[in-house]
């Protein structure tokens, strides 16, 4: 199902999903070309969660994300040039090259601090929510984290604080099947988490909690906009678990691109290697969205092909921008310890 929003918004959602996809596929190549090193994580397969979810927010809202943050920043409208530059450790990066892939921050978009510590942001998100309530600013906080973060004690401690003090925060848990590609909606219990379904945990702390299909942009849009409305009405914290099937390229420690995504694969996956074809056929949220756009006559195949081309071009330009951006001066390392 596609969100019930005007056609131009649908096309913008589609553009952002494709942007994430092409950005990250390009990123993986940049890594393979040794343009940057170190561990990194990609958002591919979760685009239909982040993009519609963040479209429900307002300017000024607070967002927190994790090691898997690129998609969230792009969904919120971040500049792919500065994003690439940061991941490549360049001067023009969002964090001046000091943060890198794990820590992308863009305060003008509401991303103040991105933590690579699993569970690290959950307490912080209760804090921006606390401040917004204290200042009656009307801002809400969205805290985006993975299913694994619920295993950290920081999560229940924060649910308790948020619930007791009715803080304006949405906990959005992206369950991407930590344990391989097999985890879809309603899949089996995790070998490292006794709580099942995961929504039982926030519910125990009296936080209303919903489980939805994270590959269904429409379902995400409905659930998040409802939750956001409740939070803005002062009903306190809300929790949503979105379930996606892990992208086969993210099953190993270092991402690989099994096949370059092309919008046309929405209708024909015969070009996709057989081992991963099923994922692209039935679980790829971007291709699902594109197919539905077309089925619902919101876009022609040509519209989509054009969008796809534009996005690729923008990604290529962004990568080139980043590659041309200088490294910071070494002495820059000594700055910004204190404000």
């Amino acid at each position, binding site marked *: 199902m596609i969100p019930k929003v005007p056609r131009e918004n649908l096309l913008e959602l589609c553009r952002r999903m494709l942007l994430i996809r092409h950005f990250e596929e390009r990123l993986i190549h940049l890594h393979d070309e040794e343009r940057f090193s170190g561990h990194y994580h990609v958002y591919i397969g979760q685009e239909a969660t982040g993009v519609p979810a963040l479209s429900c927010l307002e300017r000024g809202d*607070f967002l927190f994300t994790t090691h898997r943050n690129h998609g969230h920043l792009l969904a919120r409208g971040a500049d792919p040039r500065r994003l690439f530059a940061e991941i490549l450790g360049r001067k023009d*990066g*969002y*964090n*001046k*090259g*000091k*943060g890198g892939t794990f*820590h992308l*921050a*863009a*305060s003008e978009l509401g991303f*103040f*601090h991105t*933590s690579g*510590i699993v569970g*690290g942001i*959950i*307490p*912080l*998100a*209760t*804090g*921006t*929510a*606390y*401040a*917004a309530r*204290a*200042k009656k600013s009307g*801002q809400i906080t969205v805290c985006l984290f993975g299913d694994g973060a619920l295993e950290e*004690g*920081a999560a229940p*401690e*924060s649910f*308790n*604080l948020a619930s*007791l*003090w009715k803080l304006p925060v949405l906990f959005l848990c992206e369950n991407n099947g930590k344990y391989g590609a097999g985890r879809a909606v309603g899949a089996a219990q995790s070998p490292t988490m006794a709580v099942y379904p995961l929504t039982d945990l926030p519910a125990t702390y009296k936080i209303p909690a919903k489980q939805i299909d994270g590959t269904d942009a429409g379902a995400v849009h409905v659930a998040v906009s409802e939750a956001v409305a409740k939070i803005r009405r002062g009903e306190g914290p809300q929790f949503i678990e979105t379930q996606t099937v892990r992208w086969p390229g993210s099953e190993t420690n270092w991402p690989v691109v099994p096949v370059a995504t092309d919008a046309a694969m929405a209708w024909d996956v015969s070009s996709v290697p057989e081992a991963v074809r099923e994922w692209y056929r039935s679980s790829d949220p971007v291709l699902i969205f594109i197919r539905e756009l077309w089925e619902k006559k919101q876009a022609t195949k040509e519209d989509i092909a054009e969008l796809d081309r534009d996005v690729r071009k923008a990604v290529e330009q962004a990568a080139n921008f980043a590659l041309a951006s200088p490294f910071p001066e070494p002495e820059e390392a000594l*700055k*910004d*310890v*204190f*404000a």
Partner: protein
Amino acid sequence: MRELAYYEAKLEALSELMAADESVHLIGGSFLGLSPHRGLFSAIEKNYPDRVIAPPISELGYSGLAIGAAMAGLRTVVDLGTGSFIYEAWPQVVNEAANAFYMSGGQTRAPVVFHVLHGIRGAGAAQHSHSPQAMLWNCPGLEIVLPSSPGDVKGLLKTAARSPNPTIFIDHAQLLETRGPVPEGDGAIPFGRAEVKRAGKDVTVIATSIEVQRSLAVAEQLAREGIQVEVVDPRTVVPLDFATLLESVEKTGRVVIVDQCHKSCGIAAEIAARIAEEGFDKLKAPIRRVTTPDVPIPFSPPLEEFVTPSEPRIIEAIRSVLR
């Protein structure tokens, strides 16, 4: 100048901060520990019921909340109670607060203050006597404040709450009753200004927190023997006013460092190492440290006394560097 007790000066700072700036919020309320005067804090609670919050026993969670709130523009002052309890919040303090400004490339300030009562306090045993300041000094990005007198606690708490950086405010459980002059008015004391608490020419004693008071008592006593001890208190170790410390060491050529951290990798170790690096040529004697030995704090009073950096141990160290 008027005289106040340490606890009075501390409460005055908190009250004035709350009155002056409605973005100041206090999370937790045992700023006076188990002192008999702790009830006085309730006046603040009553005046600002929405800005003094009693959290669950979730140090990790509410420390993170305070950091996040500071990122969003509040000035949160968190009381974690006893020194050892800040370890519960370690991931938030060390991995998040300390790195926020740097990691974001200078975008995000986290002007939070973490408060604990540190040190050997009488029957605290191994889990209620910790001095976490040295561990925290090994983590860049945190300002660290160690007041030793009523005037300092008031002035430094003011500055801590106004600082744009995460600040650790550590005072000693046994300082609360100490009396001393406190100026009228705001009284803020800038960070990074060591104070020569007593001038002397024979030997420099660099001391922090309660050990400043002990060192002053020792200096008084040794003065009667004609030994002139200079007592220097850094007051904040981050930022550290090393110039003032070095100046004193260069003058006397002899230095004893007194601090209540465990010896290894403690505050005294760092100050000693810097002096050995930058003041070596002026030293006339080995650098001596008076610290808590590397043993957990025992419960039994004579054992606890034995490991405390006490006046007799300070005197012994001073004599040894004068030899």
